[in-house]
């Protein structure tokens, strides 16, 4: 393979490694911006992955599979919302329980799908643009979910910082009492944000089981939900930085595999740590202005809100 060919191939690998993280982290960012910390991302991703795979296998329609993945993970999020927003339970404990539940539920549902493959999502080439050398295959020849993941980041950034509804969502996350006092429906906003987070985690899961490795295996997320959660915090709740972080993490992961392949003399255990170290380091460096971090962090995150208190 030519050097250019290898470069393109590596970039494509990085993109697919970053996409599930990007979906899950962008969704969680919206939930957290509204003041809700949902630690159930890993569980929602798994439910999305198994639903996407099962529905695609049974119905033959990947589109239906993806929609159902988002709905099923959204259903998990609804359950979380009901317990934490309506019944006012502790968000951390509920989120952890949601992950455990998702792991178990997905393996039960997925039992009969172990060991069967599915066709990977088709690549959609943008006519004309995909023919551009190097840039074409990197930017304009992906499956639908990869395009969607980047569009969603832009959409979320626009929504949060350029729309009135986004402003309300951020206000709810920063001070639910104040938002409530001026008449904003705190609980309803949070429900919607949590549902959006769930649907996005579901899409991340569906990407895993339909595109990244088109198969179902128990626990196939292998901790990506937790990495997504960490990304949101280290990206200081900024959509563009979540994008940067996800791609950085994916990029360093792939590069360390390549470094091993060419026989670089660094212990593989150290190389395996690199994606985490580099991502944290870079995101901490660009977010070192404490005042701005405080400005971005949703002040009410994890706090229970009851209108009467």
């Amino acid at each position: 393979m030519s050097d250019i060919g290898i470069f393109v191939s590596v970039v494509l690998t990085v993109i697919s490694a970053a996409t599930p993280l990007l979906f899950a982290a962008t969704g969680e960012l919206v939930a957290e911006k509204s003041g809700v910390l949902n630690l159930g991302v890993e569980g929602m991703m798994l439910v999305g992955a198994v639903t996407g795979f099962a529905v695609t296998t049974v119905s033959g329609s990947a589109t239906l599979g993806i929609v159902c993945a988002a709905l099923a993970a959204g259903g998990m999020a609804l359950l979380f919302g009901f317990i934490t927003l309506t019944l006012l339970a502790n968000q951390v404990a509920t989120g952890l329980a949601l992950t455990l539940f998702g792991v178990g539920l997905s393996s039960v549902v997925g039992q009969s799908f172990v060991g069967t493959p599915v066709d990977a999502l088709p690549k959609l080439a943008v006519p004309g643009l995909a023919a551009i050398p190097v840039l074409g295959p990197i930017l304009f020849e992906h499956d639908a979910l990869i395009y969607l993941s980047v569009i969603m980041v832009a959409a979320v950034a626009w929504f949060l910082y350029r729309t009135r509804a986004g402003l309300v969502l951020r206000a709810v996350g920063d001070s639910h009492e104040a938002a409530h006092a001026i008449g904003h429906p705190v609980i309803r906003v949070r429900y919607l944000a949590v549902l959006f987070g769930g649907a996005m985690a579901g899409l991340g899961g569906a990407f895993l089981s339909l595109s990244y490795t088109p198969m179902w295996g128990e626990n196939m997320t292998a901790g990506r939900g937790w990495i997504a959660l960490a990304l949101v915090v280290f990206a200081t709740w900024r959509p563009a930085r979540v994008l940067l972080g996800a791609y950085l993490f994916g990029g360093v992961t792939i590069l360390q595999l390549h470094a091993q392949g060419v026989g670089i003399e660094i212990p593989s255990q150290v190389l395996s740590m690199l994606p985490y170290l580099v991502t944290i380091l870079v995101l901490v460096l660009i977010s070192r202005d404490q005042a701005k971090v405080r400005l971005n962090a949703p002040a009410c995150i994890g706090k229970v809100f009851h209108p009467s208190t």
Partner: protein
Amino acid sequence: MSRFKLVLGALLGAAVAAGGAALAEELKVGFVYVGPIGDHGWTYRHDIGRQAIEKALGDKVKTSYVESVAEGQDAERVIRQLASSGHKLIFTTSFGYMNPTMKVAKRFPNVHFEHATGYKRDKNLSTYMARFYEGRYVAGRIAGAMTKSGTIGYIASFPIPEVVRGINAFTLALRSVNPTATVKVVWVNTWYDPGKEGDAAKALIDQGADVILQHTDSPGPLQVAEARGVWGFGQASDMRAFAPKAQLSAIIDNWDGYYVARAKATMDGTWDSRDTWGGFNTGMVEMAPYNERIPAEIVADAKATVAAISAGTLHPFQGPIKNQDGEVVVPAGKALDDGALLGMDWYVEGVQGKLPK
């Protein structure tokens, strides 16, 4: 988490005890698994072995299993629960269950224990494992004949002797066919992460590998091989469904025969404590059907290699063997003994990169 498991264990124990009271005659066999039975790999194959016992012995046995049991304290509780609820034969199927199994075995002298991949034995505790490196040797013969680039990609989990032994056996066979071929090893530091395993395969293919071997459990690398048009080998079970064109063969774990034999031995009182390290000769290791795109003479060579290893006329680690520095570490006419194989922590000539310690 642990309390949850404890409750689960107690419930299971109660259920199992209730079931056992009705039919006191039948032999109860228990299994402890480290992963989910849906992993399509290591635990899946052990569970196939459990089902083989039920098939072979019908209603004279009753089997039960506990899956995804963490190694350590949780394991001891689960094993004790199985032992105290009437199970007379208990298989613990991961290396990390060694000490817990040992402890429980001392408390229940009338229960037979079987621990996979360990080395501690007792009057009522046997150990067993399989010589998977024999399968990797056969894979090396096929890869050496099939590779055009002379570069093989090897996706490895953790730098333990079991995995290093596989890399070396594969490389020795590879270079016995193709003396200049080299093996690139990428450690992913996980047994199971389909995405990461697949990414490692992509990296290796980008670096010129045209055959991929994996010592991780998911079909991820094979799917990549299929998509990229290179060759690969299945791990633990036949993964042809995931890569009908790319899978050359697979190295299959087959515990069925051993499990049935040990259950029968327990029933007729001939069970004894022993150490089994079985290869092709015992059926514990098998090659999956060979890809029909492999030329007939290469298939014939692979089958002859299996037969020779099985008959004991071919030893995968027969000298002369050179290490990475080109020094002869096993002279001609000698073969490595089991002790050296069990502690293997060096690469043979032909493996690229440095072994992480």
